[in-house]
């Protein structure tokens, strides 16, 4: 009876937190707040402590649990408490100096924003015992790249059976490759200014700093052929699936999921842009040592390879590919063959220029 109860407790805890976050009601929130301290102190007494990790929830969190959380707890005795929340909530915690999470799993744009606001703990590289940080390119003072997703060119194989656009210049060529297109809207994440500049002849290694006006000029050329500027990953997938468009930029995870369900779609990896998912530690993290231990464990080749197998994100640790077969590598943005033909989005540039681009983007959408 006792063991069963204790087995259940962490789960109930997580659920109540989630209820709170979804804002179902103040009553639920108060109830959760009331039960939290008791549960937390009980958990602390039993284990080597815990670490609270922010994730985006969903399938990604399920993969992390299998690939990282469980082996991490087995190896260290530290319990992992996933905390599914949106970015705004973390920003609110930072602002209120009431940080309830240790490790945040965030897109690089968000991480850099937090870094600039002084919200991140400097990472003590000396504490890394399991991971060789030299195997990872994206190591900075405040965050480390965890994995990578890509914005690729996706196309319908029935519309483009014999030949398809192989770069963004050809994407812009509506005579050779007719058909409805889509590109990313700023409300999804970033507008595809880089692709426009590539189409206009800017070399891939000379993209940044972006020539914003030149990019918009090029975007105006393609505007009449854009069915919709997709506003979320789900919308882009829906549009490809229902043949609203036959060609467009799309996140690799979204189109791969459709291809796995036998949709007549394919990816052109050439000139894809990579976005980094990062791990960082929030200033004021309640379990700082455990947070570092978590980073050290999560960035090893093996767990990285496991995450790649489960959700198709590209590992940042180059050694991870020792555990990845060629078939899987062909799906990953960071496999050696894809690394060469794509580029990494410069999150720092975007953090500095997002407001400026936003005003221009609104005007562009409304036909200016």
């Amino acid at each position: 009876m006792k063991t069963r109860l204790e087995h259940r407790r962490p789960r109930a805890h997580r659920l109540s937190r989630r209820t709170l976050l979804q804002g179902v009601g103040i009553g639920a929130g108060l109830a959760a707040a009331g039960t939290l301290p008791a549960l937390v102190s009980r958990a602390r007494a039993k284990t080597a402590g815990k670490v609270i990790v922010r994730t985006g929830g969903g399938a990604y969190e399920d993969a992390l649990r299998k690939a990282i959380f469980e082996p991490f707890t087995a190896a260290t005795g530290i319990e992992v408490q996933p905390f599914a929340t949106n970015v705004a909530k973390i920003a609110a915690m930072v602002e209120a100096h009431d940080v309830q999470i240790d490790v945040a799993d965030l897109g690089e744009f968000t991480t850099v924003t937090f870094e600039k606001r002084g919200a991140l703990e400097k990472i003590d590289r000396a504490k890394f015992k399991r991971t060789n940080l030299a195997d990872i390119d994206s190591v900075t003072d405040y965050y480390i790249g965890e994995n990578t997703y890509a914005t690729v060119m996706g196309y319908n194989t029935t519309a483009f059976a014999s030949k398809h656009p192989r770069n963004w210049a050809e994407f812009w060529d509506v005579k050779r490759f007719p058909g409805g297109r889509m590109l990313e809207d700023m409300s999804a994440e970033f507008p595809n200014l880089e692709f426009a500049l590539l189409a206009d002849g800017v070399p891939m290694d000379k993209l940044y700093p972006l020539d914003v006006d030149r990019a918009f000029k090029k975007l105006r050329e393609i505007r009449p052929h854009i069915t919709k500027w997709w506003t979320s990953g789900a919308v882009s997938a829906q549009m490809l699936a229902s043949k609203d468009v036959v060609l467009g930029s799309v996140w690799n995870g979204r189109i791969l999921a459709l291809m796995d369900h036998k949709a007549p779609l394919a990816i052109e990896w050439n000139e894809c842009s990579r976005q980094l998912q990062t791990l960082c530690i929030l200033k004021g993290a309640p379990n700082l040592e455990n947070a570092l231990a978590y980073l050290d464990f999560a960035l090893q080749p093996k767990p990285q390879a496991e995450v790649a197998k489960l959700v198709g994100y590209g590992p940042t640790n180059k050694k991870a590919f020792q555990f990845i077969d060629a078939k899987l590598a062909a799906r990953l943005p960071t496999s050696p063959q894809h690394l060469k033909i794509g580029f990494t989005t410069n999150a720092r540039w975007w953090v500095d220029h997002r407001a400026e681009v936003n005003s221009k983007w609104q005007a562009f959408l409304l036909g200016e």
Partner: protein
Amino acid sequence: MQPALAPIPAAEERLSAALAARRGTRSSRTILLILPALLFLGLFFAYPMIDIVMRSLSGAGGFSLAHYGRLVAHPIYFRVFQITFEIALTVTIVTLLFGYPLAYVLVHCGRLAAGAIWACILLSLFTNILVRTYAWMILLAPDGVINQLLGAVGLGHQKLLFNRFAVLVGMTYALLPYMVLTLYSVMRGIDGTLLQAARNLGAGGGRAFWHVFLPLSLPGVVGGSLLVFILAVGYFITPRLLGGAGDQMIAMVIEEQVELGMDWGFASALAILLLLLTLAGFLLYSRFVGLKSLFESKL
């Protein structure tokens, strides 16, 4: 001027005098009764409002008008406000046009039919907005059911999705229940014998409706329209998913600033401007139509 009826007004005067005498104790009791609501509003409405105002007025080094400066420097955001009000107003008018007859039928039809209509209306109200919106994406798709029907009757394929039409369809569908519920509650309170009286006095069905039912249902029309308009002004999921490039609504921009841009100051400035513009519209309305019509559900 009170022939033959003197006892009655006199009695009423005495009564109202007695009531006035008791009013003193009543008002303090009234304050006690509304105190919890006042506290709640103060804590959960006024405080966040003040916080938003402060945010919109603060920059890197304290007080700053930079966020409003950005608004002024980029008139495109005013264009987005204009589109927002355009869409909200159209949705309000369309929900009224659909909702009025629907509420009228609900009030006057049999219990069975009313039950069926209520089920449809409430089902849409209880369905998650994302689910509803994706359902419309599927229905309005180029090879969706509606286009297949249009093709079958020889109207050819139409572009139904990712444009203003789709936004209006999605938002009308989502907001119709609010209009119907408001209208229904007002129409329900209209005394049926008033219509009988109108008929008896020589008005045909149409004129009885025009001279009696319609004026008495106006508080519902005004209340429902206001409710739908204010809700519509804040919509962002439906226009984001169903709309095209030209269907930018201000809440979409605000949401983007909060979730992605993490620029809460600018988001606050946009929110405050939205509030002020909506209030201005409200005042303009009350200036020309009168607030009384809003709050007097029973004349």
